[in-house]
Structure formats: C-alpha cells, structure tokens
C-alpha cells in the first residue's frame, strides 16, 4: 500500500505549490491512474514515490514505512519504473536492458538469463529472436514490451508508469493496454499510472485520481467518476457521452442472463450474433445496432452461456446515470 500524508511540493522560485497537500492511498495490487492536464502535478506526484523528486513537506509511506527512512537505491530497486519514451538504453541489447536491475542486485548469471527468457515470453516476444536485438531494431510497441519486461525484472511489488503508451499509435496503444491488463491479472502489482488521457484512465484504472493544479479533485472508481463527476472540471475532462463510456466498463459476462446448456444449443441453431465473455457492453450495443436485433448471445469458448438484451443495456446505463 502506498500512502500520501499531507504531501506538498513547491519548486524553488515558484509562487504556487506544484503539489498541494496530497492525502490519499493506493491499495496493494490495484492500478491507480493519475490523470489531469499538463502541469497538474501528476508526474511530480509519481516521481516522489521513487524519490526522483523530494517533497517539500509531508510523508509518503509504503506498507507503513516512511520512504525517507529507506535507502534510495534499495527503494528504487524495489519499484519498477517505465517512462514515456521508455528510456531503453540504446547501446545495450534487449537482454542487457532487462538485466539492469537484476545486475544491480547482484544476481547470478544463470538466474538473470532464465529471468530474461521468462519475461520476454511474458510480454510475448520470442527470446530467441529478440534477446540480442538493439532497441533501435524494434518497433514502438516492441520497445514498450521490453520496457515493461525491464521494469518487472526483479519482480518489484510496485510499478510506476509515466505515460508509457503515450508515444504509440492508437491501434498499438489499445493493444498494449489490453496486454498490460492481461499481464496485471497474473502479476497483481501495485501500479501508479500517469496519463493525460481520460479514456486510458477509465479503461486501465481500478481507481482514478483526477488532479488539477496540484490537488486531487476526485479519487474514485472509473464507474463512479463517469456517473458522479465531482465538479465541472471532471465532467469536462470526461468530455460527455458518459453513458457510452460506462457501457465500455461493463463486460458481457457480468451483465448477461445465463442460459442453460440446452437453451444454448437451441440458440446456436439460430445462427444469431455472438460475443465473448470479455466483450464490453459497448461492443454488444454496437453489434445490436449493426445487426438490427435487440439481443445478442454470449459464448464461453464454443458454448453459448448467456444472452444480453437491448433493454438490459438501457436499464444498466440509465441506472448509473440516475445516481447523478
């Protein structure tokens, strides 16, 4: 758990605090998105966690321990760090880049080698092909995967990610986001993720902290932010179409009506449209609009397990909307 207590940062010669009296917690194993416009203090907030920036006053605690009392190098080695232009070392191979932190920790060579292979497979890069390549031989998405692998090298409990997918094209970005969420399901790290993209925050975050002028204006789940924006600034940041965005947070598997195996067989015989359990309600709506049907079947593997009706979507979206 990461805990900010009355944290203030004022840069020398500045009239106002870059970060003003932050008090919040990030639970272990969750992704906390720090989102806001440029200069809102989100990067400063993140960099205070690994002591790249020292707070002017206040305390930051990791699992109850004030980070001031922890050796800087030791602290940083226990925190994975990924930045926007990834910061891969251009003169080192992919393998050498990943080996950086294990090397600093003094791991044995065999252990480092095994770890490099394991991580490259985790991020879906063939070790035989990519291990000895230099960063400039990789595409943007591949560099990002190596960046993730490097940050995970020593299995740190915490990861700091500073707009890691910011420089990617939209298609690669969406793919990397999905893959990263998939990896996070396996590794369950405590992640602090800085972004200026509210869509990314809604998609990736367990919680979202919206920052403005160095203060948190709202800290809550994506669903809560969409259905209950704390003030006009947050509403503006979300930029309308909240209900559609909310549909994006609901998975077909969660909101469908279950069907028995025999009903599933019957449904299959109709040849009607199908979606997976992990498809979102927005996907379902889009599919209904495309086919002109008011319902869609949900399949798990090759078995149809549920059905989703247009009225369900309508009710779900408006129920959240009503709570405003």
């Amino acid at each position, binding site marked *: 758990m990461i805990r900010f207590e009355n944290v203030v940062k004022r840069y020398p010669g500045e009239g106002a605090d870059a970060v003003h009296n932050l008090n919040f917690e990030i639970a272990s194993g969750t992704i906390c998105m720090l989102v806001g416009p440029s200069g809102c203090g989100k990067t400063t907030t993140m*960099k205070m966690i*690994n002591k*790249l920036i020292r707070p002017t006053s206040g305390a930051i605690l990791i699992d109850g321990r004030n980070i001031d009392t922890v050796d800087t*190098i*030791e*602290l*940083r*080695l*226990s*925190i*994975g*760090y990924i*930045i*926007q*232009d*990834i*910061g*891969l*070392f*251009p*003169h080192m191979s992919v393998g050498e880049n990943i080996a*950086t*932190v294990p090397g*600093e920790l003094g791991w044995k060579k065999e252990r480092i080698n095994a770890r490099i292979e394991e991580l490259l497979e985790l991020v879906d890069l063939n070790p035989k092909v990519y291990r000895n390549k230099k960063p400039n031989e990789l595409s943007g998405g591949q560099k990002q995967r190596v960046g993730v692998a*490097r*940050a995970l090298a020593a299995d740190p409990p915490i990861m*700091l990610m500073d707009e890691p997918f910011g420089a990617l094209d939209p298609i690669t970005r969406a793919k990397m986001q999905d893959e990263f969420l998939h990896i996070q399901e396996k590794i369950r790290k405590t992640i602090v993720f800085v972004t200026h993209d509210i869509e990314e925050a809604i998609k990736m975050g367990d919680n979202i902290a919206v920052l403005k002028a160095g203060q948190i204006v709202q800290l809550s789940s994506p669903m809560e932010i969409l259905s209950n924006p704390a003030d006009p600034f947050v509403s503006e940041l979300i930029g309308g179409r909240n209900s559609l965005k909310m549909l994006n947070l609901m998975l077909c598997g969660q909101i469908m009506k279950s069907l028995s195996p025999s009903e599933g067989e019957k449904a299959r015989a109709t040849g009607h449209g199908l979606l997976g359990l992990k498809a979102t309600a927005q996907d379902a709506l889009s599919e209904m609009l495309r086919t002109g049907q008011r319902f869609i079947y949900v399949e798990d593997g090759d078995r149809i397990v549920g059905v989703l009706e247009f009225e369900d979507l309508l009710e779900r979206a408006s129920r959240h909307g009503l709570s405003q």
Partner: protein
Amino acid sequence: MASLSSLLKVLLYGLIGLFLSIWVVQNPQDGLVARLVTYDKLAVLLLQHFYLVGVSALLAVLTAVPLGIALTRPGLKSWAPRVLALVNIGQTVPSLAVVALSVGFLGVGSLTAIVALWIYSLLPILSNTLIGLQEVDSSITEAAHGMGMKGRHVLFRVELPMAAAMIMAGIRTAVTITIGSAILAAFVGGGGVGNLIIAGNNISRWQVLVLGAALPVLMALMADVIFESLEKKVRV
C-alpha cells in the same frame, strides 16, 4: 566491410611511406643526402615522433576525459559553459605559439614538446567529452536513476558508452592534429620527423624536405583511418 577498407587504407599509406623512404635512401641526390637519410636515422626520427604524439595524446585523454566528466556532474555543471568557451578560445591559439610559450617555462627538450602538444590536444578531447555527455538524453539517465542504478553505474554503463563515439571523435581530432604539430618539436630540440624538414631546409635538398613533409602527413592519415574505425565501433 568498413574495417576491411580501413585496413587497406592504412596499408596503402604505410606502403607509400615505405617506398618513399626506400627511394630516397637508395637514390640520394648527393652524398649529403645519403649521409643524412639512412634507415637507422629514419627509424629513430619516426619512433621519436610516435613517442611525442603517443605520450602527449595519452596524457590528454587521461586529463581531458575525467575533467569533462567532472564538468557534467551536478556540482560543477554550472562551470561547463565557461570552461567550454575558454577551451574554444584556446583552440584558436596557433600551435607554434603554444610551443614557444612552453619554451619560456620549461626550456628546450622533448619534455617541452610533450607539454605543449598535451595542452594543445587537451582541447578537442575536453570539448567533445563535454558535448558527448551533455547530449545523452536526460530521460534515459533519469530512467537509469529511477530504476535504482548507482551513480557510478549510471556514468560507466550508460552515460560514457553513449558518449563514447563523440569522445573518440575528439581523440581522433586531437591525435591527427598532434601528429602534424609534433613537427614543431624539432624547433625545441624534441626530435621527430620535423628534424628532416629543418635539415632539408638548411641544406636545400628537396628530397629531404619532401620526405620530412610526407611522413607526418601519411602518419596522420593512418591515425585518422584507425580512429575513424574505432569511432564507428563504439557508436551506439
């Protein structure tokens, strides 16, 4: 392939120098040239020249690179622009003036020559070390620090390797210039191929003058090719 063509170039320049020397020794203009230019004497002069350049360049690397590193560390960073400006002014002073000035302090001899050449070759190495280190992307060094690398590891494993090509380019400039400037050592009793030029001029023998002028040029060309390939090798 680049290294093969460099090797061929070095061989070519070496052979030209060798044939030129053999030609002068075998076919001297007259007895004076025959006595002045022998294989033994040429070997001594070339070794002296090599020694002057090697020692001064080595000293320059050993002083300029650490100084350049120091001037990019947080404490001394603010001094870097001033030192760089001073270095740039220093580079405009003719090498002859530097040699003459050192005679004033140290008298004549090879030590004077080495000190003068050292000071003169310091400058390109220092400025390139500074620029090379300053050009390392700050987001990369911040990533290195943020990941928990120790300060000296960031320097030796990240910053210096990334600046290596630039530093090597400075050494290349310094060495090629120094090979030419080392001719001036002959004026202060430091020896080297410059002796041939002075002697050739005194006795007005064109063969001696041509040899004295050609050998340093060929040496400089060889050094240039060798350091060019080293530079390519360390380029990121």
